[in-house]
């Protein structure tokens, strides 16, 4: 199970997402669940113009590898890839991809959900929302 975890400054475009999906899917997998975080045009009632992500890259990648290992131990025969983008992102761009393949779909959904939830609550990545009239580092 070739686990891919990475912080990147490159766009998470269709090819990047596809490459992760292919990396996790083996011949015995029947279900592939992919989560993509997308930059929304609003948050907490404010119009968002763009986002900027920062990360403590070395620790973030270590934490992500730990999450992937935990997922692959907990959901038998699951394979996980996760990549988070940092730098400036426009509305509609993808900030994070978590792809999980499993023999059966129920596990793939659960494992993918667990991976992104745990990433959000433990991986040192930060987000600044840029509004038309200011900017703010925000939680969540």
């Amino acid at each position: 199970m070739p686990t891919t975890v990475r912080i990147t400054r490159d766009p998470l475009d269709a090819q990047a997402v596809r490459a992760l999906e292919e990396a996790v899917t083996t011949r015995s997998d029947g279900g592939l669940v992919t989560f993509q975080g997308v930059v929304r045009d609003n948050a907490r009632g404010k119009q968002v113009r763009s986002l900027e992500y920062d990360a403590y890259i070395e620790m973030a990648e270590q934490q992500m590898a730990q999450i992937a290992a935990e997922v692959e131990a907990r959901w038998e025969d699951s394979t996980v890839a996760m990549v988070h983008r940092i730098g400036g992102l426009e509305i509609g761009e993808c900030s994070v991809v978590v792809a999980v393949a499993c023999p059966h779909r129920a596990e793939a959904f659960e494992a993918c959900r667990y991976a992104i939830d745990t990433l959000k609550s433990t991986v040192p990545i930060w987000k600044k929302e840029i509004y038309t009239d200011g900017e703010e580092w925000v939680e969540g």
Partner: protein
Amino acid sequence: MRVHVRYFAALREKAGKDADELAVPDGATVSQARAALIERYPQLASTLAGCAAAVNRAYASAETALSEGDELVFIPPLGGG
């Protein structure tokens, strides 16, 4: 002794830099290092109040004792995803 401090997100902007060397007494804890940092940069106080800490790339409690050359990072509320 000296520890290596790195700044991210709001702390980087308020400190105006990416990293620092911080002098602390031998055996100082994360909590003592935080106090030393606030003394040097009062403008970080409010942000540091809401931060977790990591030593050598792993989460650490306020009571964790530091060693010479440790990498210390204060972790503001997370925003990944």
